[in-house]
């Protein structure tokens, strides 16, 4: 299965650890050295992760690059890593954004740089682990461990209400995940009853035919954990706080990768493990998703703080991901997956742009800006591309994702599809209106007259994102191909149960 004949997933996951050790050895006052080492570590991690894409076999839905060694044998826990078409792009997104995130805080974080970089690298380990783990226990460990660095990133380097935001983030996510832990344990004993041996192997659980009634409760427990992480309306309230208070890199990672852990969870666990419950929950989740889309967009329109606006736009965008996923057809799920990547790129880039403005002016209020294009033409251009990408203008990445999702949604439910389409318009409203107020017009504030345009460092981290935006937008085939087999298999698995449940329902009726 592993065409590289090398534990590449573990290498990628733990490479940041090497960086952490290196940074620990450096004197804490040598900021430049620490930054460089962190940056080099993340870049190397990204480069090492590239072979995943090139060696990836797109024709199969099987797990690839699998590593499996016994870990805690008494419980049947093994160290089991592997990726398929669903996780591949997310792993790449993580390594890609982590490198950019380090670069983006080059000058923004000047205090406790050492601890900061260690936290960022630690976070990367946790995120990669979540996407690669194929053992439930291992997955849970990574899922929880990533809370710690994020908590510190928000709480130490964040804005004025950082402590509140950090604690809220921690408790909210944790309360969702402990229920998931109980559900995992329940599955574990169910699996034992069915197979006679203890195992936390996720793939093994896929074949477990869980009784429909149990599926309901288990689905609920997982749903809460993932819905909080996504975050779905109405579990989203931690997100604006965390986003607004977090430093730029924190926001980039939070929006770019962390939220994807929730949507990924639905794809990896909820759908294949509880197909009947998933099908039953489709109406609820699709309605919640559409509410999230509209609500997120409306609240974004009302924001006076750019960062808050972007944060709420995440609620809206993630609504699209959920909508597409639970349309339960190829277009919807693939659109949802590609939209996860898109959101990572677009919203990540939006946060980076906000960060650039903030670094120059130390305010995020829209009213403080205006006429920026006169002093920062390049920034204005990139910002425009980013905004376009976020609102789904054709030719850019967002369009592909949203189009696929909407096709999927229309297939599943015309009315919800229509409302979701209206959300697109609202998306254009808040982004363009914000863009107009920040970039166009006359320079009203004296301080804005002397703003510097993009520095070379900022170019370095913005350009790759823009390249990817166009790449996915103009030529999405290669990206979609990677996920095709896995998504197809997943849907086949789920829809099989749709047939079964309708058949059972039909039997009951005929009686």
């Amino acid at each position: 299965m592993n065409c590289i004949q090398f534990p590449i997933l573990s290498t990628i996951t733990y490479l940041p650890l090497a960086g952490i050790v290196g940074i620990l050895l450096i004197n804490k006052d040598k900021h430049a050295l620490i930054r460089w080492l962190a940056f080099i570590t993340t870049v190397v991690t990204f480069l090492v992760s590239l072979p995943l894409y090139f060696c990836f076999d797109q024709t199969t839905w099987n797990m690839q690059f699998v590593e499996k060694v016994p870990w805690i044998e008494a419980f049947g826990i093994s160290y089991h890593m592997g990726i398929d078409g669903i996780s591949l792009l997310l792993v790449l997104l993580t390594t890609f954004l982590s490198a950019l995130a380090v670069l983006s805080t080059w000058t923004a974080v000047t205090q406790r740089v050492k601890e900061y970089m260690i936290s960022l690298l630690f976070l990367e380990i946790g995120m990669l682990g979540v996407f690669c783990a194929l053992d439930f226990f291992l997955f849970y460990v990574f899922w929880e461990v990533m809370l710690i660095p994020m908590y510190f990133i928000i709480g130490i380097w964040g804005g004025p209400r950082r402590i509140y935001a950090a604690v809220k983030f921690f408790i909210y996510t944790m309360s969702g995940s402990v229920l998931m832990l109980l559900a995992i344990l329940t599955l574990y004993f169910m699996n034992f009853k069915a197979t006679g041996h203890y195992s936390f192997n996720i793939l093994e659980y896929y074949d477990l035919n869980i009784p429909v009634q149990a599926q309901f409760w288990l689905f609920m427990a997982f749903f809460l954990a993932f819905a909080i992480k996504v975050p779905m309306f109405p579990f989203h309230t931690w997100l604006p706080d965390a986003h607004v208070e977090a430093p730029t890199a924190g926001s980039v990672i939070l929006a770019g990768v962390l939220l994807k852990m929730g949507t990924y969870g639905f794809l990896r666990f909820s759908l294949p493990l509880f197909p009947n419950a998933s099908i039953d929950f489709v109406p609820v989740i699709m309605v919640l998703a559409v509410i999230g889309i509209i609500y997120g967009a409306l609240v974004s329109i009302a924001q006076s703080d750019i960062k808050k606006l972007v944060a709420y736009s995440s609620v809206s965008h993630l609504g699209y991901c959920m909508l597409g996923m639970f349309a339960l057809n190829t277009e919807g799920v693939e659109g949802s997956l590609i939209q996860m990547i898109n959101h990572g790129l677009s919203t990540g880039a939006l946060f980076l742009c906000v960060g650039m403005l903030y670094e120059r002016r130390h305010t995020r209020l829209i009213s403080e800006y205006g006429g920026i294009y006169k002093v920062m033409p390049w920034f204005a251009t990139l910002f425009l591309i980013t905004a376009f990408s976020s609102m789904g203008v054709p030719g850019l990445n967002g369009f592909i994702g949203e189009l696929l999702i909407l096709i999927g949604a229309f297939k599943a439910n015309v009315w919800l599809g229509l409302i979701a389409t209206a959300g697109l318009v609202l998306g254009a409203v808040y982004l363009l209106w914000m863009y107009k107020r920040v970039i166009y017009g006359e320079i009203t504030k004296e301080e804005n007259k002397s703003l510097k345009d993009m520095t070379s460092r900022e170019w370095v981290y913005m350009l790759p994102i823009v390249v990817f935006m166009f790449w996915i937008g103009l030529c999405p085939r290669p990206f979609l191909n990677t996920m095709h087999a896995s998504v197809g298999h997943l849907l086949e698995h789920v829809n099989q149960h749709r047939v079964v449940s309708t058949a059972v329902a039909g039997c009951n009726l005929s009686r």
Partner: protein
Amino acid sequence: MESIIAQISFQAIYPEIVIAATAMIILLLQAFSPRESKKVMGYLSLAGVILSALMLLGSPGGTEYSFSGTWVIDNYSRFFKLLFLLCTGLTILISLKYLKEEGIHHGEYFAILLFATVGMMIMVSGADFITIFLGLELMSICLYVLTGYTRGRQISNEAALKYFVLGSFATGFLLYGIALFYGAAGSTSLKSLADITVRNSFQNYTIIIGMVLMIIGFGFKIAVVPFHMWTPDVYQGAPAPITGFMSAGPKAAAFAALIRIFVEALPSARNEWVDLVWILAVLTMTVGNVVALVQDNVKRMLAYSSIAHAGYIMVAFIAAREMGISSVLFYLLAYTFMNLGAFAIITVIGGRNEERVNVQDFAGFGYRNPVAAVMMSLFLFSLAGIPPTAGFMGKFYIFSAAIKEGFLGLALIGVVNSVISVYYYLRVTIAMYMKEPETAPAGTMGAVLFPPAIIIAILISAYGVLRMGIFPSDFIQIAQQSLIAIK
């Protein structure tokens, strides 16, 4: 009833003899030694602890009765004895500097500590109610004294008195329970009680009342709600190293004895006590965690947290099959590491007269003592049950056992509680990393100096916490091999 051949094998109590002898040597030396060389007493007692532990490690496995069946050595008691010795050893390391700073550097301190250890060791090896009671009392009386050891401080005196009075009450309950058992079985041995209960299939109300009294008596010792009232005051008043010791060692000893009694003597009584203990467990977890939320004194907060942890352990106790009991052993060991680690750091930060034990006293600690703060965070995250730490693995083990036995509701309450607990553990990390000391006196702004003995204690604890969290296999195996044969 089969007669047990009277045999006295001193070999069976060698580890206890070593500890007791060390304690007595220290008392003798104390009388003749010059005033300054007290440090040597600490190291001497440490040597005794290590020697005793080596003897335990070297002893052959298997179950063996001696002293006319009143004494049993099995893997279960070996496990706990090693745990107590670990706990005592760490406490000695933590105490050295503390005693010097407080000006109470006497040899007696170590002697009393060692006697308490002997008491705990007797408790887990007792196969007879009288033996268990003897051990319990030896331990308790030593603890009363240790609680009041910083006699210059009023709060310490008050704590000792409170502990003594309430502890005596508990003893009374326990003794009454034992008397009732004796009345029913005609013997004080656990075995004969087991025979009676199996035969009578629990129609005997004497035994049921005895059991309830037993739960109350031990409930006091392990600080189960509603018998926990003494805990916060005593934990706050006792010297910091002793607080750490009390929350780990004696608590584990009481749990060990309780489990032995219920598994060995009352195996058929499960249905009779499950509901009662269920309610106690829920109360203990919830009250412990909720009240801990509002504590400003870290020692007091950890006292309530230790109440909550007793609640988690009771969850496993309710699911008292193999997995449940092995998870108790695992958890108690994990708790020893993380709690003593935390108390080692608190002892140092607290400084002279324990003036700095409030949450806000930790402000800025993360930057003054980065390594120690990281360690403290590690212990706190472990207490909160966040991977990859021993605390997480322990909770995972306990909740698996509960779910396996069908106590899903209990597990649910347990995990909800552990989310609540996160908040107060986070408060300390918030203070350490996210707050600056506001009105700190000039002298406290610098880094706190950590003496080598405490560094060793912290490192051992940190190693334990991480090792049990990341590679728990060995420990799980040890816990599984240390079960009492379950009937």
